[in-house]
């Protein structure tokens, strides 16, 4: 691609990274680079842990726990959705903390405690004391795209999936919304929904129109 000044610039491609470039990177790596990369990978993938505190109060690894029965699972992803739950749903009387996800990536590290501040990055699970099959997840940390699959497998791997209804709450910038008119005139904020065909209940808002899509952890 030539620019006005005549120099040739490599255009960023929607194809993503060319495999030739990847192969070149591998060749130029020194042993120290390789070691750093290995450590980074271990930290990113090895440290996605879901820790549950069972009835007895003891913490246990997700793998040891029996899949527990869950009828409703509400997941709030992102600061706004997490704040919504904190403001309108959660309180220390009706809900108890039953789990936490620990993860690390270049953008955030989850807090170690369950007594979190709204500005922390965290991913906590709450259970309704009056109905222990209702589970809530507040995830205000950024889950990187290569960690999303693991997050899903580890979290949903602990739950029995029959009879489970999952509700995902999330927010997107209005500027990302694709519509014929300009987004400047849209009455924001507004709600849109996506649902699987198995979801038979009424939805409280219109469905997300084409060509809009959902990305990241809510999509995963």
């Amino acid at each position, binding site marked *: 691609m030539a620019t006005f000044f005549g120099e040739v610039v490599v255009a960023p*491609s*929607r*194809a993503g990274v*060319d495999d030739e470039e990847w192969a070149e990177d591998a060749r130029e790596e020194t042993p120290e680079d390789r070691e750093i990369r290995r450590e980074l990978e271990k930290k990113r993938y090895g440290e996605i842990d879901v820790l549950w505190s069972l009835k007895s109060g003891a913490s246990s690894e997700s793998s040891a726990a029996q899949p527990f029965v869950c009828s409703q699972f509400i997941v709030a992803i992102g600061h706004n959705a997490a704040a919504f739950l904190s403001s309108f749903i959660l309180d220390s009387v009706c809900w108890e903390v039953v789990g936490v996800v620990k993860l690390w990536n270049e953008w955030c590290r989850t807090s170690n405690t369950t007594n979190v501040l709204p500005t922390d990055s965290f991913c906590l699970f709450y259970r309704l004391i009056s109905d222990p099959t209702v589970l809530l997840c507040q995830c205000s940390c950024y889950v990187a795209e290569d960690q999303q699959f693991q997050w899903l497998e580890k979290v949903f791997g602990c739950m029995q999936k029959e009879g489970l209804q999952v509700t995902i709450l999330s927010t997107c910038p209005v500027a990302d919304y*694709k519509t014929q008119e300009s987004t400047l005139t849209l009455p924001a904020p507004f709600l849109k929904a*996506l649902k699987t065909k198995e979801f038979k209940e009424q939805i409280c808002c219109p469905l997300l129109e*084409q060509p809009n899509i959902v990305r990241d952890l809510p999509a995963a």
Partner: protein
Amino acid sequence: MFVPCDRGGGSASSDFKGFTLLMPAVSVGNVGQLATDLVISTLNMTKVGYFYTDCLVPMVGNNPYATAEENSTELSINAEVYSLPSKKLVVLQIRSPFIKNKYRPFCQTLLSWVKSSKCARVILLSSSHAYQRDDEQLLGTPLRYLLTPDLEKAVGGLMQELHWKEMEKVAAYPGINDTEKVLHIPGGGITKLLFTESCSEGIQMAVLLKFCSEGDNIPDAFALVNYLNEWLQLIKSEVSASNNSTDTSSQWKIPSSWRLLFGNGLPPALF
């Protein structure tokens, strides 16, 4: 990896023995993916399943091929499989890029799925950076093809009849040693990897690619899908009266998801 949809047909809908698998490579201009969208949309193909994979960036939306209120609410994700048994055609559409370092595992899983589902052959739609063409490639058609040795035996003759141009190899060490030639598909994403793996695994694969640049790639998609149609004859080509050439551009149906590719409407206050 492949998860079939639960439809009345059951396992019959995921039996692809002898079918042609058509799929895009995520490549420059997303031309392969756009062309695949045209095929699925025009032939009104039925979704028969999806790929459950950790190799692609997640995304979800409503049916991109919706034509009416009734069919617009089916969820659609990043890797889905459509089929048209009457033409023995199965199509894989990929809608998002690869997650870093995951393209190799994806290729391996894909090729083993191709073998296990007994597809007869694979056609990969792709593209390559136009600015990397050499002097000869700048002239003439921007469309190229490649065939694995196993498929060359079957359809090599047809390519000659169609006057198609095979993708040229380039010098491995330009300027130093011009005799050693390698295949080089810049901007082609996983095209070269899939092709070389298919050659060594005896899979019948054809690559159809177009030289292009990033921008409005809809015309490139039409060119590529018409190129494909010269071979597969998926839709009838009308002989255009004005220039006496076969031009099927008007008969491909653009999916509703191609709306607003270049942004929203403008705020009136701008003017």
